[in-house]
Structures are given as C-alpha cells and as structure tokens.
C-alpha cells in the first residue's frame, strides 16, 4: 500500500520501511527549534535532570522573537537565561533576527526533514516539504537530550488545488477559507497536504502562509509537494533537499478536497475564533483602533509589497495605530532597499523591528479594553492581542492595509 508524504517522512525518521496512521514510532529528529516563549522553562527542567546532556547540539536552534526588545524585567531574565545557556553550550542563537519560523525558513529548514519546534506554528515548514510540528517544552527537552521522540502517525487530509487566485485575493484568504470550511478542529491530529496544479501558482511566501496557519484547524503538520519553486527557494538560500517525497498514487487519505483557487474571495475571521470566517465585505464598516501587518504568517516582503502598493500616497487614519512589522531582518533590509519601509513611514505607520508583536499579544502593540484590531497575525482568540475584553479580526495584508487607511474594516477596492 502506498504512503502519504507525512508517512514517508516518519518512516524515514523511524528507520522503517513503512508506517500507517495510528502507529506510534520512535523517530530521529533533524532539527529542534525553540523560542523565548518557553525556553527558560526547558532550561529549568534540563538543570534538574540527573544527567543533563544534549544529543546533538547542531540540531538546536534558539530564537528570541516574542519580546524583542525586552519590555519587562521578567522577559529580560528569561532571555538572559536562554542567552547564557546558548553561549555555554554553543547553540545556534538568534536575537532580533525575526520571527522564529521565518528565520528557520530563511536559514535552516529543508525538504524531507522532521522538525520539532516549541511553537505551534512550526507546521509552516511544510512549505518546503518538511514535517514540522509544534511541541511543548517537555517534549522539546526529551528530544534535546535523546535526539529522538515518539510520534503517532497522523492520517492525512489531501487538498488538490486547481485554478489560480484572482487579483486582490491572497493565500491568506485561501487558508482562512479552508479553516472556515473544515473548522477549528477539522484536521485535529491529522496532516494537511496540499498539491495539484493550483499549487504551482503559489509562491514560497504564499506556501509558508498556508502551512503556517494549518494548526488553526488542529493539524499536526502541513505538507506541500516539492517542486521547482521549492528547489529554487532552497537553492537561493544555499540548501539542498534532504528528501523530495511525494505521496504515492495509491496513498490512503482520510479525505480528499478539490479546491478551485479562483473561487476564493477576500475573507476575515471574526472574533474570537479562526474558523469564524466571513466575506470581508460583510464586515466592512466595523470601526478599528489598530491594524497589524506582520507575523510569521504574513510579514514577508511579498505581503509588505501588497500593503505598500495600497497605502502609497495615502495616510493612515488618524485614530488608527497601524503597526507594520517585517517578519525578519532579511525582510526588513529588502523592504528598506525597495523603499517600502519609507512608504509606510510616510503614510504614518508605526514600523517596528522584526518580532512577533501583537500577534502574540504580550509585547509592544497590545490593544486595550474594548478596542478592535484587524490583523494579519495567526490568531484571534479572546484576549490574544492584549486586554481580555478586546476584539481581533484576521484578514489579508490587503484588507488590513485598506482598513488602516479607512479607520474601519475595508477591502482594497474601497480605498
């Protein structure tokens, strides 16, 4: 019987010929990413071990991105713990280089790898055909010490894409539509695999955006077939694929969806659930206090270009705080060179250094009681962006930028 991409990666990592959904295997991990959200707890647990050790320090990548620069003595203490440990053990360490997943994509991840990240959006790595999955710090510590972990082989939902997104519709609208369709736990414990002719119309930025958000449908991982676009991206970043797996013709999927990309429309996810989606136009007119263009989901150069094209020659609404946060230092430098940073600055936006910003809700950019944010971030849970009684709408870079100009939710054609 044939295997899916997810099954093939797990089989290779487990050193077995084949696996099937429901099996639990011990797997060898290729890479272990951890950020400042939890690493200090991992270190505390590590220090309590009877025989603390690191299986392979070269597999570890630690990234400070959630609170950069630090905004409290508590985060400063957590960062120091992380920095000192990384220095002592020779762990690859980034601070201020950008959001962890974007930094991982730019510098580390390659096709066919099995990666644990102590962050739920680790599933983003599927954009290059790597099996990335989010874990907690106990899982992380176990893998750090042994180089291995246990994994339950997931079933796979297959999405066959055809057609092409219309102008003014983005990958972000597509994945929000999918989450709306299958629900916040529609892919719980499962892998979401994307393929088909339509995939070829999506660039790497689109792909990262789509895979990144799959956890919001509960997915264990997201995977995309490796193709020319993948290989070009890897080559441009100086890497080779480890494996270029494709699902077999006779692989068994839990369910197969055929999606025509041309049917997708601009979407918003309304408070307080990612699957609470609606046609963006239905929400038009909702007053906003803040807009956020950034995050590992939508803070790449392509997203900033979309926003810049809309706001060029216009001004941010005076009562709106428009945060523009490039996903990485590389993205920032590119945007600076292209004049995009200046376009946003001229329009009155707040351009922050690359970090997680209000997407994670406990650093600069938080919103207050009763306030409304429209965001390209990953989540709109109650209280996610600051005060527990506040409201977050998720939308594309285009809709967010248009809303920042209008002072209320608006699509790009309305400004």
């Amino acid at each position, binding site marked *: 019987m044939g295997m899916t991409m997810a099954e093939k990666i797990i089989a290779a990592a487990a050193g077995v010929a084949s696996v099937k959904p429901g099996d*639990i295997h011990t797997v060898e991990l290729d890479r272990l990413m951890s950020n400042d*959200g*939890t690493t*200090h*707890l991992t270190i*505390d*647990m590590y220090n309590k*071990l*009877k*025989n603390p050790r690191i299986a392979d320090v070269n597999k570890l990548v630690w990234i400070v991105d*959630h*609170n950069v620069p630090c905004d*409290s003595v*508590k*985060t400063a*203490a*957590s960062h120091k713990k992380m920095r000192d440990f990384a220095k002592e053990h020779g762990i690859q360490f980034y601070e201020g280089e950008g959001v962890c997943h974007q930094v991982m994509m730019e510098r580390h991840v390659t096709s066919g790898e099995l990666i644990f*990240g*102590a*962050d*739920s959006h*680790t599933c983003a790595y599927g954009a290059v055909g790597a099996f990335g999955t*989010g*874990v*907690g*710090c*106990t*899982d992380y*510590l*176990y893998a750090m*010490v*042994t180089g291995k972990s*246990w994994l*339950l082989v997931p079933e796979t939902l297959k999405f066959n894409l055809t057609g092409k997104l219309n102008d003014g519709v983005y990958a972000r609208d597509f994945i929000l539509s999918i989450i709306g369709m299958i629900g*916040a*736990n529609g892919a*719980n*414990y499962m892998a979401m695999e994307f393929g088909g002719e339509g995939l070829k119309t999506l660039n790497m930025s689109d792909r990262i955006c789509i895979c990144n958000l799959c*956890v919001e449908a*509960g*997915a*264990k991982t997201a995977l995309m077939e490796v193709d020319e676009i993948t290989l070009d991206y890897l080559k441009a970043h100086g890497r080779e694929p480890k494996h270029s797996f494709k699902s077999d013709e006779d692989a068994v999927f839990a369910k197969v969806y055929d999606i025509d990309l041309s049917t997708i429309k601009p979407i918003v996810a309304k408070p307080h*659930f990612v699957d609470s989606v609606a046609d963006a136009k239905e929400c038009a007119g909702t007053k906003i206090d803040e807009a956020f263009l950034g995050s590992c989901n939508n803070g790449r150069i392509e997203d900033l270009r979309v926003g810049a094209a809309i706001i060029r020659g216009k001004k941010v609404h005076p009562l709106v705080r428009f945060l523009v946060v490039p996903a990485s230092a590389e993205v920032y430098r590119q945007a600076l060179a292209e004049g995009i940073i200046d376009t946003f600055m001229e329009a009155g936006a707040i351009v922050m250094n690359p970090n997680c910003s209000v997407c*994670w*809700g*406990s650093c600069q950019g938080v919103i207050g009681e009763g306030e409304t944010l429209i965001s390209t971030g990953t*989540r709109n*849970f*109650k*209280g*996610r962006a600051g005060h*527990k009684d506040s409201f977050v709408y998720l939308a594309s870079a285009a809709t967010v930028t248009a809303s920042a100009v209008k002072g209320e939710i608006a699509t790009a054609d309305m400004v």
Partner: protein
Amino acid sequence: MGKIFKFQQDVDTDQIIASQYIIFPTIDEMKGHAFESLDPDFASQVQPGDYVVASENFGCGSSREQAPSVLKALGVQAVVAKSFARIFYRNAINIGLPVIVCKDLHDNVNAGDEMELSMQEGVVRVNGKEYACTKLPEYMQGILDQGGLIASLNE
C-alpha cells in the same frame, strides 16, 4: 472524588493561561491566572483532586506547555473533554496530567457536581451514573504511569 469545573468548546490555550503570564519565570507564579478570562475565580476555588470537564477541541491554539502545567500545579486531577487539540493533549501526557476523552459526560453534568474517575476501568462516575471514556493507548499510559516523559531520562 473531586468537583467539576465546566467549560465549553474550543477553549484555547490563551484562555487557559494568557500570553502576558506565560513569560513569568515559573509555573507557580502563573498558576493564579489560569482561566482568568473565562472564570476569574477558578484558580482560587479549584482544589487538588478536582476535574476540568469541557466540550470539543479543548486546548486548541499554541504549544505553550504552561497550559497543562498550570492545571497540574493547581491540583487538577484530570481534564475530561469530548476532544482535545493535539499539542495540548501531547503536552499533558508528557507532564503527567491525565487527559481523558469522554463524549457523553459534558452534556450530562453541571459545574460543581462530584465526580470520580477510574482510568484503569475507563469509566467516569457522576451523580450515580457511569460514563465510558476512551482508554489511553498503551504507550501514552506508560508515560503517565512513569510520571511523565522526563522521568525516563532520570532512570
């Protein structure tokens, strides 16, 4: 026997423990803020041995292990839900917090009801009624039995 604290569906990790608290240095410093947005009294009222009962997709959202950890630190005996989000489920097993899938329980009990759980029998008893719950796969039960994933590293 323990008391039931009841929650609805799609309880995400931000509700279990909000972002502004997960940066605190230790679990003990955060646990007082568990479920703050949904039930501000939870942390002060829950007693060791009590249960959290929820509907579908409990623990969706981030990979923050602080979520099961604060519940364990507050003495929650087990979380019983119609279904769990994947990362929360895995994290809970790894730190030794029992997470039990029971489809029928949530709709038939009220907050404050007294409940008893037998993991070996795979059954929950509340108000004189029994509800069957899913047993853990052997591998995961093994992790729970040894006291969490890290315990094996110290053998």
